[in-house]
């Protein structure tokens, strides 16, 4: 097995110490919950600083470090201005308009909102969409990639060991363990990235050299990326408004003010983190041009490789821990959400007898394991995993965005048929859209997606990407909602 670097004994000690440390912490915290609220929502007492740590680290996994950096590596500052920055607008909306309304209604999970607003059928659809979205496949795949590139391990082994550590402390300690380890992981990932920025830029002669040698398009706010593609990127940010892990943080907060402040401060940290990733990715491009990195380096790996090359021994170990931390904090949170979707949202409302808190915690732990195992197999036996994740994200947003937002802001419209028809049309149209484009379209290696090309009789050509799905599914879900509302005149709102 060939690793990218030779780790010093200090680096190895830091990595082993970190993995062992988070497991011990999980075991210690496993004795600290007395009921399901304690296990799943940390007793609903999380303060703003704790929420900042867990929110920032949960959202920013390896997908940001590797995926977003690819855009900055290939296109320049558009990675920040075109892709990352517009999403802060959705964080702002969530912080100012959603957090208080959701927190004050005492929910436990996202599908429970649908249960109270529209009844069990819509809730069931929401729970299934949330479970599929929360499967940790992409994160476990990322673990495998990092373990392979940095440590030289086989990807499946790396994901099993590193993802396994996250699984152990999540099962044992629930949200307490997730929140406390998230905080440590948050600190590690931010500090190591902050240290890597000046060192990586220094390695290639700073921005002066980059500006003199990179294509001028690298320094245009929207680069060479067409504005419609930027709009599509922005649309993906809509998922923030129905993010199950984000909702879990709102419900676990001490009060509405804590979660609002945490979200607002989180935007500052997300912004700094995104720019740091953009700067290092551009430094990596410079390094490739200077021959410091091979010209054919995969853009996904470029940030990792330039960072590791720039940092001294000891700090390399900390940086790798920071990268692992970014991923562990994502795996643990989504496993817990997916586990609770199975126990709290799907099993409990349909159980024939009353379920005690003890049984519910046990069921959730089993659910966490099931979601981890499914995620692991999807990660390594499904070829186009990134496309699958985009599909599942579209599926969740198309199914629950319209009924949840309209239910929150328009209480008089909480009619069972409205919620159900909106969720069904969103879900079915998302599946049909992806199915048709997949079946009739062709996969474009250049764009990394499947495109359906339609040429009209007058010769006009339309390229329909799979990523356009929400342009169709959300309006259909909205129409479904209002049709349901019209047909459901007879029943009282729930």
């Amino acid at each position, binding site marked *: 097995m060939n690793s990218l670097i030779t780790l010093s004994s200090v680096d190895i000690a830091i990595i082993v110490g970190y993995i062992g440390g988070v497991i011990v912490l999980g075991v210690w915290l496993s004795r*600290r919950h*007395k009921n399901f609220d304690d296990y799943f929502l940390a*007793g609903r*007492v999380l*303060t*703003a*600083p*704790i929420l*900042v*740590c867990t929110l920032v680290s949960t959202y920013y996994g390896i997908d940001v470090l590797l995926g977003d950096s690819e855009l900055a590596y290939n296109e320049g*500052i558009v990675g920040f201005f075109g892709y990352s920055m517009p999403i802060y607008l959705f964080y702002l909306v969530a912080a100012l308009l959603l957090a208080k309304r959701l927190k004050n209604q005492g929910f436990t999970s996202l599908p429970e909102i649908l249960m109270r607003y529209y009844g069990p059928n819509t809730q069931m659809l929401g729970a299934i969409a949330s479970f599929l979205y929360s499967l940790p496949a992409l994160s476990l795949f990322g673990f495998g990639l990092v373990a392979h590139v940095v440590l030289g391990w086989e990807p499946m082994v790396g994901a099993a060991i590193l993802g396994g550590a996250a699984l152990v402390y999540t099962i044992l300690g629930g949200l307490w363990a997730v929140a*406390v380890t998230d*905080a440590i992981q*948050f*600190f590690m990932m*931010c*500090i190591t*990235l*902050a*240290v890597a*920025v*000046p060192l990586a*830029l220094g390695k290639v002669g*700073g*921005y*002066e050299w*980059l*500006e003199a040698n990179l294509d001028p398009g690298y*320094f245009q706010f929207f680069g060479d990326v067409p504005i419609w593609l930027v709009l599509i990127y922005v649309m993906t940010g809509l998922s923030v408004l129905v993010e199950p892990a984000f909702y879990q943080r709102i419900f676990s907060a001490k009060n509405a003010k804590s979660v609002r402040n945490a979200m607002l*401060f989180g935007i*500052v*940290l997300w*912004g*700094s*983190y995104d*720019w*740091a990733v953009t*700067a290092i990715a551009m430094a990596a491009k410079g390094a490739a041009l200077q021959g410091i990195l091979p010209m054919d380096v995969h853009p996904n790996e470029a940030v990792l490789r330039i960072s590791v090359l720039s940092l001294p021994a000891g700090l390399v170990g900390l940086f790798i821990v920071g990268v692992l931390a970014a991923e562990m904090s994502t795996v643990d949170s989504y496993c817990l959400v997916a586990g609770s979707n199975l126990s709290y949202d799907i099993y409990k409302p349909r159980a024939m007898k009353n379920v005690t808190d003890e049984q519910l915690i046990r069921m959730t732990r089993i659910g966490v394991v099931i979601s981890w195992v499914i995620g692991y197999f999807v990660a390594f036996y499904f070829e186009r995993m990134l496309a699958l994740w985009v599909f599942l994200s579209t599926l969740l947003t198309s199914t629950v965005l319209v009924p949840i937002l309209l239910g929150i802001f328009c209480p008089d419209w909480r009619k069972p048929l409205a919620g159900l028809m909106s969720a069904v049309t969103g879900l079915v149209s998302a599946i049909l859209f992806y199915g048709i484009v997949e079946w009739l379209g062709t996969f474009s290696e250049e764009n990394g997606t499947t495109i359906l090309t339609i040429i009209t009789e007058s010769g006009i050509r339309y390229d329909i990407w799979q990523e356009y799905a929400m342009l169709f599914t959300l309006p259909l879900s909205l129409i479904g909602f209002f049709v349901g509302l019209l047909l459901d005149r007879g029943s009282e709102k729930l």
Partner: protein
Amino acid sequence: MSMNIWQAVSIISAWMLGLSATAVFILFLRDILVILRIKGKRDD
């Protein structure tokens, strides 16, 4: 000699990331110790 604007933005963002993360982490430690102490007493 003036610093390149993007270089300046990058250095500032790195400092902001490092300092904000440190400040939040210190506040986290303060809060978590208080919560665990209160919780420990309540459980006893």
